């Protein structure tokens, strides 16, 4: 019985036999062979048996289906053919060539041994991959350029200074000795909220002993800060300012 092996780089992701029933290929989870990638159409193509021949039909997909490098609409497949959809490859083989006892007995196909293995991409593969999948690939590699630091300007409330430049990766707002933005009112919490400067050099504010708000919206989960945002927590109001 012919078999389709879905590969991503060197990793085998799935193997599907093509019996009398056709195998549909696409991003939608109800396909026989699911390729989970934005470059793949929901119902992209199908592979089926017709009078003893294995056929591939592209459903007019946006990004196309390629067999051995040629864009195709409808072709017959033979063992050894390589079908490219997006960045994924589907290898066509005849399972008679691989002596696998499970197949002959008709028992359920065991999972390909590598399916659950973690794989890593090297730099070149990763770069090509990210460029292909999305034009925004560079955001996975933060620019080593000069870091633009934000400043918090105190608009309301009691603090030890009028403004704070956020040069640390962690800024705590509170009464604690480790706090950068030191609250001086009597009942202020030790750590009201925290601001993290992440790898992308953007700042994210999150809850500590209090849940801060950003422009009135509570930061239950960390919220990314932008210039002009107003943070309110534990009786103080702070404005985010970027200076050159």
């Amino acid at each position, binding site marked *: 019985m012919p078999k389709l092996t*879905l590969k*991503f780089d060197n*990793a085998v*992701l*799935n193997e599907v036999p093509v019996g009398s029933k056709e195998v549909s290929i696409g991003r939608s*989870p109800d396909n026989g062979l*699911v390729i*989970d*990638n*934005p470059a793949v159409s929901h119902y992209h193509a199908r592979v089926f048996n017709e009078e003893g021949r294995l056929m591939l039909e592209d459903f007019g997909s946006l990004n196309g289906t390629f067999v051995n490098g040629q864009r195709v609409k409808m072709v017959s497949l033979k063992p050894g053919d390589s079908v490219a959809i997006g960045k994924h490859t589907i290898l066509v083989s005849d399972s008679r060539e691989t002596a696998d006892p499970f197949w002959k007995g008709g028992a359920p196909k065991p999972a390909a041994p590598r*399916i*659950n*293995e*973690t*794989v*890593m*991409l*090297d*730099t070149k593969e*990763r770069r090509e991959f*990210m460029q292909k*999948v*999305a034009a*925004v690939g560079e*955001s*996975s*590699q933060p620019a080593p350029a000069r*870091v633009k630091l934000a400043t918090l300007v105190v608009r309301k409330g009691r603090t030890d200074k009028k403004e704070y430049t956020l*040069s*640390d*990766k*962690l800024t*705590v707002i509170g009464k*604690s000795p*480790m706090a950068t933005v030191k609250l001086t009112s009597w009942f202020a919490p*030790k*750590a009201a909220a*925290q601001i*993290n400067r*992440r*790898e992308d050099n953007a700042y994210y504010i*999150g*809850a*500590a*002993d209090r849940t801060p708000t950003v422009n009135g919206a509570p930061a239950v*989960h960390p919220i990314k800060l932008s210039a002009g945002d107003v943070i309110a927590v534990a009786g103080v109001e702070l404005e985010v300012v970027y200076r050159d």
Partner: protein
Amino acid sequence: MNTEPFTEIEFGAQSDCGRARENNEDCFGAVPELGLFILSDGMGGQASGEVASRMVCDAVAAHCREAADNSSSFGGGHDAETCVLGDRLTAAIRLANSAVRCAAQENPSLLGMGATVVAALLSDERATIAHVGDSRAYRLRNGRLEQLTRDHSFVAEQVQQGLMNEQEAAQSNLQNVLMRAVGADAEIQVEVTEELFAADDTLLLCSDGLTKELSDAEIARALEENDDLQAAADCLIKMANGAGGNDNITVIVLRNAPKLVGAFQRIGRWFKGS
């Protein structure tokens, strides 16, 4: 360092093969006197994943020990924008990266091995966390579990860029594709995050064998219900095995405990709450 800290680090840790794998490629290390805790999940053919994760833990611990003894021995330049402890962990992981790559070049049977790493250096009320790959750090504070690290995996980056939603990510067949790993490249980009680790906060370092089996709510419950941290670690492993145990599972549970013992601790908490 002449002031005694008011808190001390309690920890519990456990690693388990799980129910589907034949060997345990996870590894962890603890150097409590430095406040250093390391967890690594290895990958590669035959036994090489085990070798890689062990090398990562050893190399990170060795560098941090050395750097603590002689604070001028940091590898690499000092970046004024990041903290000293962050630099220390970054240098340690870079050294681990070259150790793994050298070993793989010298021994063909180890070729292609790699590992994830998540390491925490704790000092007072601050946790400096460095990671590469999809091993994670979480913090439980006031009953709320928060993921502190972002996976360096294909699906996580797709979610961050808005190309995939959380549900699509959870169902994706590309879950196991890592964008960064120790041993993958000569250059390694280490992500460092600094976090508040206040008294009574609980920190969890774990491999993906835990987080692929249990929800945040289940993890939070296990941490809250076990005051003893070794019991919490054992409980998490048991739950992950109960939910399938499809991968190796490793957890390190840390708490910044007020420096009082037993009943006094409760009285202390009671006073603090008043």
